[in-house]
């Protein structure tokens, strides 16, 4: 019988998950996984935050809770407290009742909802041809999220300067100046993925000035708030600055990393509108999009986050847990850089400590990456991106030596 799906081609696997698979199958006892962006302890283990364990017990013990549907836009106490995390408790925009939110399935889901909305409603009713700019490089799923939402013109904006291993500010500003008016720009709020390179405050101010003047749409992706500096407010500086500049904007928030709630899919699309009337209409249309995608979001993770954020002692404990994670990353950065320097590995390695957040763009080229994987069983992305959380006090020497050997032997 002819199959309806006889012509369906085998798709190439998602790179980062394939990497994890290959790592799993590697028998080398010294293997190290520097691929997937999830936090690991110094024992190389996943870490369920102590505050999360506490709140889970609270939830299990509460017999008044049930599994009923959440509202289409999600749990209200989650949405509002999550937006406060991004914009600040005392955000004037919140006080002016022009901030709303949609609870979504992780950061991906928040990007998806924002993208779908923009395609339908941003600048006229059909934005399939509106250019969407993502940083070069960027998280590998950004492109697919916007393409799947119907955007046909997704372009890179200059961001990473491979030679100087830092931000290409001139290139970035240049692309902002030359982008067609009303283009949509996806900005990383902090801890840029994959480069770990963030603009300074002054640089952000320059970016904002051009975007305001040229009427470009601000779409923040905030997946690592707290992870960059260890301080949630510091990491939200860019988002909050843009709000003070009067932008109407979206901010896709993920609580996967800073709450360690990866598999509960906890995300929030924060919407800053000109006024509450515009906000109301925007939210009503968001509901329609949610309904044809997942109807209403999962309750467990949102409950967890809401209880934590709205209970002072638990909130303080969470800040502490976040700092624990950020501090370990900073320690590994300092360690790795020191060891490479001690080994006198060719090249400069300051970028390891200058970069921020979970990831580091090592500067290793694809051939060197292949060598690391094949010869040393150290798994990292072809781009040279490593997850600092994969480093531990026990494996850091091996990793440093391997980088040294690779750089010396492979060009």
């Amino acid at each position, binding site marked *: *019988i002819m*199959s*309806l*799906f*006889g*012509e*369906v081609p*085998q*798709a*190439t*696997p*998602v790179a980062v998950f394939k990497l994890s698979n290959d790592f799993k199958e590697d028998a080398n006892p010294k293997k190290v996984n520097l691929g*997937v962006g999830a936090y690991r302890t110094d024992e190389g283990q*996943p870490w*369920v935050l102590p505050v*999360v364990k506490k709140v*889970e017990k609270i939830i*299990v013990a509460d017999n008044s809770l*049930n*599994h*009923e*549907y*959440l*509202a*289409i836009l999600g749990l209200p106490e989650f949405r509002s407290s999550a937006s406060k995390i991004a914009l600040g408790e005392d955000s004037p925009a919140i006080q002016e009742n022009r901030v709303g939110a949609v609870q*979504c*399935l992780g950061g*991906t*889901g928040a990007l*998806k909802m924002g993208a779908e909305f923009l395609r339908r*409603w941003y*600048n006229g*009713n059909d934005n399939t041809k509106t250019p969407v700019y993502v940083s070069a490089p960027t998280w590998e*799923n950004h492109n697919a*999220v916007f*393409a*799947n939402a119907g955007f046909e013109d997704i372009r890179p904006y200059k961001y990473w300067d491979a030679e100087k291993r830092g931000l290409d500010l001139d290139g970035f500003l240049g692309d902002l100046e030359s982008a067609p008016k009303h283009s949509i720009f996806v900005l990383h709020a902090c801890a840029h993925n994959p480069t770990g390179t963030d603009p300074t405050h002054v640089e952000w101010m320059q970016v904002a000035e051009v975007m305001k003047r040229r009427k470009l749409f601000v779409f923040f992706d905030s997946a690592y708030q707290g992870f960059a500096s260890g301080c949630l407010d510091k990491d939200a500086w860019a988002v909050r600055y843009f709000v003070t500049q009067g932008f109407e904007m979206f901010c896709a928030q993920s609580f*996967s990393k800073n709450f*360690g*709630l*990866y*598999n*509960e*899919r906890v995300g929030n699309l924060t919407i800053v509108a*000109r*006024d509450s*009337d*515009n906000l*109301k*209409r925007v939210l009503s*249309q968001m*509901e*329609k999009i949610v309904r*044809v*995608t*997942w109807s209403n979001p*999962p*309750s*467990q*993770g949102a409950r967890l986050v809401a209880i934590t954020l709205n209970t002072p002692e638990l909130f303080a404990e969470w800040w502490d847990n976040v700092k624990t994670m950020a501090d370990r990353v900073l320690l590994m950065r300092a360690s790795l850089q020191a060891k490479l320097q001690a080994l006198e590995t060719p090249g400069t390695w300051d970028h390891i400590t200058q970069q921020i957040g979970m990831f580091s763009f090592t500067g290793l080229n694809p051939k060197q990456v292949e060598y690391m994987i094949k010869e040393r069983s150290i798994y990292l992305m072809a781009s040279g991106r490593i997850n600092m959380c994969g480093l531990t006090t026990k494996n850091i020497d091996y990793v440093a030596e391997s980088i040294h050997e690779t750089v010396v032997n492979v060009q």
Partner: protein
Amino acid sequence: MALLKSSKIISTVGLHPPLGILSIRASSWWSEVQMGPPDPILGVSEAYKRDTNPKKINLGVGAYRDDQGKPYVLSCVRKAEAQIAAKKLDKEYLAIGGLGDFTKACAKLALGDDNEVIKSGRNITVQTISGTGSLRIGANFLSRFHTEARDVYLPKPSWGNHTPIFRDAGMQLKAYTYYDPKTCGFDFQGALNDISKIPEKSVIMLHACAHNPTGVDPRPEQWKEIADLVKKRNLLVFFDMAYQGFASGDIDRDAWAVRYFIEQGHNIVLSQSFAKNMGLYGERVGGFTVVCKDAEEAKRVESQLKILIRPIYSNPPMNGARIAATILNTPDLYKEWLGEVHGMANRIITMRELLVANLKKEGSTRNWKHVIDQIGMFCFTGLKPEQVERLTKEFSIYMTKDGRISMAGVTSGNVGYLAQGIHAVTK
């Protein structure tokens, strides 16, 4: 909250601001965004909430309620949760296709433990965001890969959210006759007539059991004829099974049509929801299955489903799937679950019988047989919009304008009052 069981699509309404405000609104990106239409079901629930009549009844709710009118958390669910909590599992991302323990058990539940499809590995089952998410992934998959036909044929009427889901995915919607308002039953001949005219390779949507919103299901002999005709027409069958176990109380009986079609050689696609039968509504537990020609094709299809899922939400939520998997894979919990599903279905069936008995007691001479013949959570009463409006205004009994009531909202405590009201508006 049954937020989505609307059986009508209301057109959008534009807002026209007074001139003075125009200049402020003109400086917003969103000035041209129209106000989205209110959801008909939400509207019902909201009006119900505002009503101060102590005798009020909410029959719009598409979620099970116990005989006290309260949400019901299954005992097997609480036990599973306790077991899971004790295991101290991590929260690492699931695979894009979801929790393996869940997807395997999900497929077995639908197709039967010994099903040849599962044994030969020619199904691919992915975890989805409940039934809606499953239908959406299915719609996206068909839209991208089933390029010979763009049309999806829904029964008339169907769940209100089917149409916007398929439309948003780029498919076109058509309908086949299904409900007979004269009998409040199945228009079998009408359905066969319409199906016989459906162009080859089109997608036909079938509700596996407990048709929503009518509660009207084909009998097995009728299913057989439909299966035959669908094969003759060479149609792609999309089964929506949101109520397995909830219809008759027996999970195998409720899956009979799905299994029969597969036996007859239909390589179906199937959406499953665990919102109702495990009471896991807000945890968003569902599955999407494609029955393929062979295991090799299943691998290719799986790879493409992952490509579709990743840009929507990357990977699915763990909590509900973990609970469902624990129940399905632990013999005592599974047994307990079957008992509880049976209990829920039984309460619904009892309420149907009680309602009819009470209507007779009130002196109603109308034929209410369909209330008992229909199956599942919903009942298409046959009430007209004017009668529904009277019921709401005069008796504080809330339901959707199409006369659909959720039997889950009926209790032994309110069935008498409900019968009174219905009789009053129909005599």
